[in-house]
Each structure stands twice: as structure tokens, then as C-alpha cells.
């Protein structure tokens, strides 16, 4: 039976509160998240939002959608998890204003005068620049903390959309984001440091948008025209979904974090699934899946991107070198491949792939290169 549950959400910094109120909520009331229990649509749920000043705000809600998540390989199978969308019915404008007032004032270092009218809310409109701190130093700090946060965020988190966002959501969030951060909006200040930060933020937003729309298009869920992205008029079949002789998609390959979705859609290739860009391991998993299909070039690409985020990960570096070696073997450059594999081992002794491939290459040279992909399967 549907049982009323309480879900505790803890925000340790005011930035998080700000992000929660401005970016995590859709349509002002909808919240999507993963929860460690089973639940059903229609079940009541109370959200306990803990603010950094230890104040807990209780907000009532009703689960709108719920779908179970496939257990990840390696995760304990007994932990059942559900992806839910909650409509926060208790989040009235009054409650929202209070939270935002506190967050805004804490962020700007002021004590909230009790009973004062809430300041202009942070709405994402082109005129938002007026809501940004007027003081140059504060604006600089605000933008650099935004930049720090966005640099380490996954692409969909940069835009503030759920991992399975549709074309319209991605486009709206991106537009809102650049309306906040576009360098043109701060050009009037004639402060190079601030313009630079705004440009960096816009670059991150644009890259996230370009990646997500490429993924949506690859999945047949969108079409690109210039900067716009729209849902296709009808059902589109991704090119790679059309069965071609010989190429069978192995279901076991992509060790990727699955995104649950009520309507399963064709996933063309693991290459572009945006939901998987979430951490060093996710990158490795994607790269391995590509290497298993023999696509060394794409794997290198993914690993290069990952190395920018996790430059000190030895296993990533090793895998990058392994991928380089595979590409080299396919081109017949055996000596280069061997040196790459040896370098990989020098970086990361435990790399089983590098050990196995080194043996293989030393034994067969450029021949039987097809067998190399078995290492990853």
C-alpha cells in the first residue's frame, strides 16, 4: 500500500539551496530524483529540505511518476532503487520566496531583516543581469563560484535538466542559462575579468547544449537547425537501428549507467548517450564499450575528454594509451603500439588490458588485430 514517506534533502551550502530553487525544480514544482525505496505514482511524500542554518522546511508532495532502476553491475542487487518525479504541492510561492530570500541574502552576506519584502527573485530572463550583484567584486566571486561548480558538473547538470530530458527541456534550460551568463550582458561593465568569466560560463553552457543535442539527434529524438533543437515531427528511426547484416548489438556490452525511462527509445550507440558522462568510471566504461566494438578512435576521444576532467587518474591514462595502441596496430604501426602499451603499464601496472594486449601484439604483430577487442568483451 502507498505509504507516506519522508525524504530528507540536505543542502550544506547556500549555493546548493540556490541551485535547488532555481535549477533543480521544473515548472517550479516538479522534482526528479532517485530514491532508495520502492514507491508508486500517486503516493504521498514529504520532502524535508534542510537548509545550511539547520532549519528544516517540510514540503508536501505527491509522486507523479515512478519507474524502477535496473541495478547497476557491481551494485548490491538487494538495494532496489526507483526514479521518481514528485510534484511538490506544498511548495507555495510564499514558501519558495522565504527560501529564496534566505538563500539570496546569505549568499550576499547580509542578515535577513525580518518581515522585509522578498527581493527580486532570480528568474532567468534576459534582464537578469540587474539581479546579479551590482558590485564588481561580488559579481566576480559569484561568477567564479558558478564556473567552479559547472566545470565539475555532468553535461545535463550544467544545463540543470534531468538526464533523460527531451528536446524542449534541453533547449529551454540552455536558453535560460545563456540569458544569465552571456558575455554581452556584462560587456557594459568593461571589466575584462568579468567578461572572461561570463565567456567561460557561456562556453560551458554551449558545449553542454551541443553535446546533449547531438545525443538527442543521434537517438532520433530531435533535429538541429542552426542553434535550435526541436522534437521530430514523427517517429524517427536512428540509422543504426536499421538492421544490417552481421552487426549485432551485444546487449551485455555497455556497462553504462542506465537511465530509466517509461518509454524506451532506441539507443543508437553508447557513444553519444549524455547520461553516461558522470565520472571517471563512467568514461572508462564507455571507452571499453567502444573498444569492444573496435572503435578505437571514438574511445580515444572519450578518454581525452575524461582526462581533462580527471587528469590524475592513472587508470584513465593507461586506458587512453591502450586505445592509442589499438589504433596504431590497426594502422600497422606495431612499434608505436608496443611503446604505448609499455607506457600504459608504466603508468598503471594493474592494467590487465595493457598486459594482455602487449602479449598479443608482441606475438602476432599487426595480424589478428580483430582478436584484440575480445579483451574488452
Amino acid at each position, binding site marked *: 500500500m502507498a505509504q507516506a514517506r519522508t525524504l530528507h534533502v540536505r543542502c550544506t551550502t547556500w549555493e546548493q539551496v540556490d541551485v535547488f530553487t532555481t535549477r533543480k525544480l521544473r515548472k517550479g514544482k516538479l522534482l526528479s530524483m532517485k530514491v532508495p525505496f520502492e514507491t508508486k505514482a500517486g503516493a504521498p511524500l514529504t520532502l524535508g529540505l534542510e537548509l545550511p542554518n539547520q532549519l528544516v522546511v517540510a514540503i508536501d508532495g505527491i509522486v507523479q511518476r515512478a519507474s524502477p532502476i535496473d541495478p547497476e553491475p557491481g551494485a548490491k542487487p538487494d538495494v532496489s532503487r526507483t526514479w521518481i518525479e514528485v510534484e511538490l504541492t506544498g511548495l507555495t510561492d510564499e514558501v519558495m520566496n522565504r527560501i529564496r530570500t534566505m538563500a539570496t541574502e546569505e549568499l550576499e552576506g547580509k542578515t535577513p531583516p525580518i518581515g522585509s519584502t522578498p527581493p527580486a527573485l532570480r528568474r532567468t530572463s534576459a534582464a537578469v543581469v540587474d539581479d546579479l550583484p551590482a558590485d564588481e567584486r561580488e559579481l566576480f566571486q559569484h561568477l567564479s563560484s558558478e564556473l567552479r561548480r559547472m566545470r565539475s558538473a555532468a553535461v545535463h547538470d550544467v544545463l540543470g535538466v534531468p538526464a533523460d530530458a527531451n528536446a524542449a527541456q534541453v533547449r529551454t534550460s540552455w536558453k535560460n542559462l545563456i540569458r544569465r551568463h552571456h558575455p554581452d550582458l556584462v*560587456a557594459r561593465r568593461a571589466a575584462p575579468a568579468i567578461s572572461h568569466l561570463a565567456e567561460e560560463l557561456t562556453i560551458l553552457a554551449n558545449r553542454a547544449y551541443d553535446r546533449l543535442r547531438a545525443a538527442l539527434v543521434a537517438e532520433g529524438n530531435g533535429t538541429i537547425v542552426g542553434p*535550435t533543437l526541436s522534437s521530430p515531427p514523427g517517429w524517427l528511426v536512428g540509422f543504426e537501428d536499421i538492421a544490417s547484416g552481421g552487426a549485432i548489438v551485444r546487449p551485455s556490452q555497455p556497462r553504462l549507467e542506465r537511465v530509466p525511462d517509461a518509454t524506451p527509445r532506441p539507443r543508437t550507440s553508447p557513444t553519444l548517450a549524455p547520461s553516461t558522462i558522470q565520472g571517471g568510471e563512467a568514461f572508462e566504461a564507455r571507452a571499453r564499450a567502444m573498444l569492444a566494438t573496435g572503435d578505437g578512435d571514438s574511445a580515444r576521444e572519450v578518454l581525452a575528454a575524461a582526462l581533462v576532467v580527471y587528469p590524475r587518474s592513472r587508470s584513465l591514462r593507461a586506458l587512453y594509451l591502450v586505445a592509442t595502441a589499438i589504433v596504431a596496430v590497426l594502422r600497422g604501426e606495431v612499434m608505436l603500439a608496443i611503446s604505448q602499451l609499455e607506457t600504459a603499464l608504466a603508468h598503471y601496472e594493474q592494467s590487465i588490458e595493457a598486459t594482455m594486449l602487449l602479449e598479443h601484439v608482441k606475438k602476432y604483430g599487426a595480424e589478428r588485430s580483430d582478436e584484440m577487442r575480445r579483451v574488452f568483451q
Partner: protein
Amino acid sequence: MSRAVGIDLGTTNSVVAVIDRDGAPRILTTAEGSTTMPSLVWFSPDGPVVGEAARAGLDHSPDCTVFGAKRLLGRRFDHPEIRRLARTLPYELTPAPNGDTWVQLAAGRAISPEEISALILRELRRTAEAFLEEPVTRAVITIPAWYDAAQRQATKDAAQIAGLSVARLLSEPTAAALGHGAHRGQDRRYLVCDLGGGTFDVAVVDVEGGVFEVLATTGDPFLGGDDVDRAIVDNLVRDVRQTRGIDISSDAIAIERLRLAAQHTKHELSDQPFAKLTIAELAQLPSGKGVEYNRTIRRDEMELWASPLVKRIEAPVIAALERAGRKREAVDEVLLVGGSTRIPIVRKELGRILGRDPSVIPNPEEVVAIGAALEVARLDGIIDGVLLIDVAARGISMSTADSECEMVIAQSSVVPTREHRLLATRSDNQPRIEFDLWEGESPEPARNRHLGRYAVVDLPVAPSGDVLCLIEVTIDTDGVVRLGASELVSGERLTLEQLAHAGLSRAEVLRLQKSMLEAS
């Protein structure tokens, strides 16, 4: 912040506009009292003469009078269109050491199109300074949307030589929509057709909640009013041969006089069904006697001569709609920009293609400059709530010594954007890695435009494959490409050396800027 101006740097005519003290855009008039200034530079014996006054040069020494420098800006000498253009120009073109197109002046001096454009920009700057009575150091300059990275950089260099820092390179269709007041009205979907002196641009621009988005741009970089003039001239040359029995096709001065008369006649024919063309002295007979030439040209006659050019309008328009995934009925408004859209047959043809009558703007020559001035106001914070979103017109690719080109930034990525590639050393203690940067997405280098060859130098001493160079390619809001290099693991900046490049080098630009400052 000093005052900034909006400049429409056109192929044939240039316009400068400012935002008045009451916040309204205002077109400035030249010393001669005209709102447009011919983009014309006469390298007279007494020094360069710019604008209306340079028309005299067309008469005396067409080989030292440069018009249409915008068509040459940032283009390679061996480009087929440049080769074709070179045959029809009265002045001579010459290849620069790096393969760019330069102009060979009769005085035995070669000059870059950047310098010529800088002279025009300096003249516009003086006009603005005379009006504002204060120094002008910043400008928004409009460029065709299809300009590649090299052409954008060349425009920026020209501005720098003229002592102007570029606040923004604004694409002309966007400027036209902005100048038309699209940001004030309701959300609309525009189709902008800009037929200027030398170029034809088509753009699908959506305006939604103050956000301008260019969905698709196409165009014909070698179609414009000048080509109509040339078509008239060609036919008149034939007419002169038939009626007077003399061949003037190799007489540069006669051709130039004919061209000026043809241009004038073309303007008259926009309003009247026929016009009279009179040239008192077209050429000289071997006896020294002057030849007079009079002829009445009917509009339908000119339309027949121009019809091969008018036919070329259709393909870019259809292609733009197709790329934008838009039916012609779904376009809310068609904007006609550029002086050549005054020609009745051009309007008729566009009306036929689009199945409707296009909006008639009272000032098609000036609307782009007004848009540029409004952009200045937008950047300075006078206009709020308007945002322009642009996409990379072409992709950027990279290649190393032996590899084919590999795409780094895809076409129609939203700018500003940045992507990176990793380059690893291939041998022990390799001191440097060289790579090339291309504009275009083809794996074959020959099909892309070469932007430059670079080298990361002073690499740390390490075994093969151990040094990973992170090359970051950034396209900024002006569509100009920037490069950065760092060592991946340590994150340390690496030195990038520019070995070869399109356009002028930084040092050359600075030297020219200095010499121009001294000259004025």
C-alpha cells in the same frame, strides 16, 4: 568608456551610424552630405584619397583606384572566384608571400586588402569624430554571415590598423533584423535577403522574446549590384563595336567611364521605364578625335542583360529555407536589405520565389548600419533584454604531419565554444609537435581552408607518448578562432609558435597601425 560607432563596411558603399544622446540611432553624413560613402580608395600621387573624392581616380588612373576590397579580404589568391574576378578588375592582383590576395598598385607597391579597408574605416571614423566632437576608438563592424575565420580576422585587423577596437563583428542579416526593429515587436520568423554591391546573403532569423537566432545562412559571395553593372557594360561594349566600329574592351579608362554611366543608369531605371546614357568622351580614335556615346536604355533591356544574374538568386533562398527546415509559408516577414534590392526585377524574382510581396524597407542601404549602432547600444547596456545567438558557419579541423584532418568543432556549434584535441609525442625526448588548423570538416586537407600551421615547442624531456599536449580551440563571439596549449598532466602552459598563417601577422598589424597613426 569612449564612444563607439556602428559601421556597415560594404563592398561598394560603407555607412557609419551612432546612437544619439536621446538613444535613437542616427546615420552620419559624409563631408559631401551623403549618408553612404563609396568604399573606394584612390592611391593618388599625393597619398590615398577615400570615398566620394576618390571617384576622380576612377577617371584618371583606374589601375590605382581600388573598389570592392571587401571581396578580396581574407581570400586566397588561388581561389577560383578570385582568379575569375582578377580578369575583370581594372587594377591588378598579386599573391602575398602566404598566398593571400593583395593589390598590385601601379607604383610598384603591393598593398593588402586589410590596409585598404583600414583606410575606409579611418575615413568613417573621422566622419564620426567630426560629428561627435570626441575621439572614437571602438566600433561594431558588420560582416557577411558566411565569412570564414580568416575573413573575420582580416576585418578585425583592418579595424586595428585604423585604430578601432572591434566591440563585435556582427553578421549583416542579424544587423538588418535589429535595424528593422525586430527586437521591439512580437516574436517573428524572418527571412533576410541582402543583395549588396558585391554579395548576396540569405538568412533565416528567428526572434523570440528578444533572442535573435540565425537558423541558416546561405549566399553567393560573388553576386551583387557590381555584377549587374558589369553585365550592362559588356552589352554596351558590344553595342559600341557594332554601332561605332571600335573595340574598347581593352581600354581601361573607357570601360571605367562606361561602368560609372551604367551604374547611374541602373539607379535611374529602378524608378523609370527608360533612361538616357550619355558619355561626352568615351574613347579616342587613332586620329585623336574623341568618340561621343549616347544611348537610351529601356528597363526591359537591362532586365534581359541582368537575367543570368537574377536567376542566381533562387538557389541560395531555397537552400536557406531548406536548411532551416522551413516552408516558405512559415516565414512571417521577408526583409529586403542592400541597395540592389531596389532593382524592380530583383523584387519581382524574390516575390515569385517566396510567393509573396517582400516588405519594403524605406532605407535598405542604411538598415544594416542602424543595426550595428543598436548593437553598440546593446553592448553598452542602453538596450536591455536583447540577445544575439550565433553559430559557427563552418567546422574547425586539425591535422598533424601525416594524418588527415580531424574535426574539432562541428559546423553550427553555438559560439562561443571550445573543444580540444590531445597530441602525444611519438618519439623519446621529442622537443616539438607541429599541427595544422583548417576551416572545414572534410578529412581531405585540400577541401578545407588552411588557417595556419602551429607548433607546440619546448616540450619536457620524456619518453615517447608520455607528453600529452592539450590543444584547445576556441571560437569566440566574433567567430574568430583562438588557440591555447597546455601539458595535460601538469596543466602547465606550453608555448605555441605560429609557423604559417592566413592574413597579416600581429607584428605587421601593429606596424601598419603605427604608420597609419603617423600619417594622420
